[in-house]
């Protein structure tokens, strides 16, 4: 039994870090986990993505064609990954940068204004944690508590001042997702 999550967006949106936070939380919970980024000749503003797999046994392929869940932080990522999520899976899209409704009806979709919520919290860069909070509200692979603990234990010292804001962002994302009827 394994859960695959693809997180995708523009470089600079915190795509890779959001995946690493999940990987840390999974490791601390004693689960098997892989985190793998796309690492082509990328540049700032280009696309970036990572795949996280969380499992209870040795993980085979670190990449999958059809993930259980996807976070799409921009339109190109939505176009690419919405069709690939397995039926019954979860899709979180950043409604702040996506000008269309979901197309799939056989998956659970949360279109969340992640930029807007992050700006309300006072820092646009929190959008990745807003989206991650929304995902975890719909995909019970890790709890928010486990993610919060991972942030406490693994956030680099120079970023510790953002710890509480990150937790709030996760919480706001989760609340939004739970209020949304897909």
């Amino acid at each position, binding site marked *: 039994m394994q859960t695959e999550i693809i997180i995708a967006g523009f470089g600079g949106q915190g795509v890779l870090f959001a995946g*690493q936070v999940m990987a840390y939380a999974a490791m601390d919970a004693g689960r098997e986990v892989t985190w793998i980024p796309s*690492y082509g000749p990328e540049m700032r503003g280009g696309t970036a993505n990572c795949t996280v797999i969380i499992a209870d046994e040795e993980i085979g392929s670190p990449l999958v064609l*059809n993930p259980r869940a996807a976070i799409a932080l921009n339109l190109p990522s939505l176009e690419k990954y919405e069709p690939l999520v397995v039926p019954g899976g979860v899709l979180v899209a950043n409604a702040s940068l996506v000008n269309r409704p979901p197309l799939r009806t056989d998956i659970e979709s949360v279109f969340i204004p992640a930029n807007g919520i992050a700006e309300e919290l006072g820092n646009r860069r929190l959008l990745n944690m807003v989206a991650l909070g929304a995902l975890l509200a719909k995909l019970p692979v890790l709890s928010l508590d486990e993610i919060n603990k991972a942030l406490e234990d693994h956030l680099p010292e120079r970023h510790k001042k953002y710890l509480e804001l990150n937790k709030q962002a996760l919480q706001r994302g989760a609340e939004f997702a739970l209020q949304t009827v897909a």
Partner: protein
Amino acid sequence: MPKELLKGNVAMAEAAVRAGVEAYFGYPITPQTELLEWMSERLPALGRTFLQAESEVAAINMLYGAACTGARVMTSSSSPGISLMMEGLSYIAGTEVPVVLIDVMRGGPGLGNIAPSQGDYNQIVHGGGHGDYHPIVLAPSSIQEAIDFTVLAFDLAEKYRTIAFVIADGNIGQMMEPAELPPMRPLRTEYPEWAVRGAMGREHHFLSSIYIDPKDEEVTNYRLMQVWNRIQANEVRYREYYIEDAELVVVGFGTAGRISLSAVRNARAQGLKVGLFRPITLSPYPFKELEEISQHAKKILVVEMNSGQMLEDVQRAVKGRIPVEFYGRMGGMVPFPDEVLAEILRIQQEEIPLDGDPRQRWMERFAPIINWKN
């Protein structure tokens, strides 16, 4: 040691540090650069030697010189950089000094790209520099194995006075997984009796790969082969999954091996008797173990991220006893488990001929699928 979330390149570098590497020489190249970067910070801080050479040609010859002093030394690179090192590597083999190399393989031939590949199999396992020599080649498929095999590579290189390779690919280099690093070994204080470290008050040692008289070179070649025979007899390593009752056995190493594991598990979930054989030492190759498998299994599928380089070693082990099929992706393309599963399902149902060329059959099946447009 507690588990840490580690990126493959960093994990291999720190493993080498903990194994007591005294000097590192290298030149940056993607997807391996984080390894060199980590060494550039760690080794000077520990009072050891990090040297960024002006090229891979320089790096391998620095490695050669340092190895002659009996120091624990290594270099790392990715495919095109490893190609540049081949002349120096042959000199190292001829001089019988231990070195460790890590090749984080990328798409080729030529400059190719920076995506993961297994295209260097023949170069590292069967070829490389000129002359008669055999390196030890270890193929990790996870970050933990990348750590463990880096440490093992130093021990084997020194035990046999030979070259030990760890061959990974861009996936292993860039991926993060929880893994446990070994404790820090103290640096050695004694050096091998053959080392060239100054001859004050004793007979001088002489290390060279030049044997002008062919009679002497033949003796050296014979000695190299004696060592290789000991390595073949003692150092074969591999891992088996669901082999006991398997009718179809998938054979793959490194990243292709773990991708195949996903496919094998899915096939098992559908009730199919499928197993996985994952060679860990590509040199020495587990010929005997695969031969035994071919006496019980009905079919074999080889999966690689190249055009079927290890396939020929599998065929050598199977000796035509049972049909062998091949599935590969090339040039930096990485197969998804679904592709391997589709092959497993096809092979289970179809009659596969004993004769003919599995690579030709694969090319015919593959032609309509390959993306010709882009």
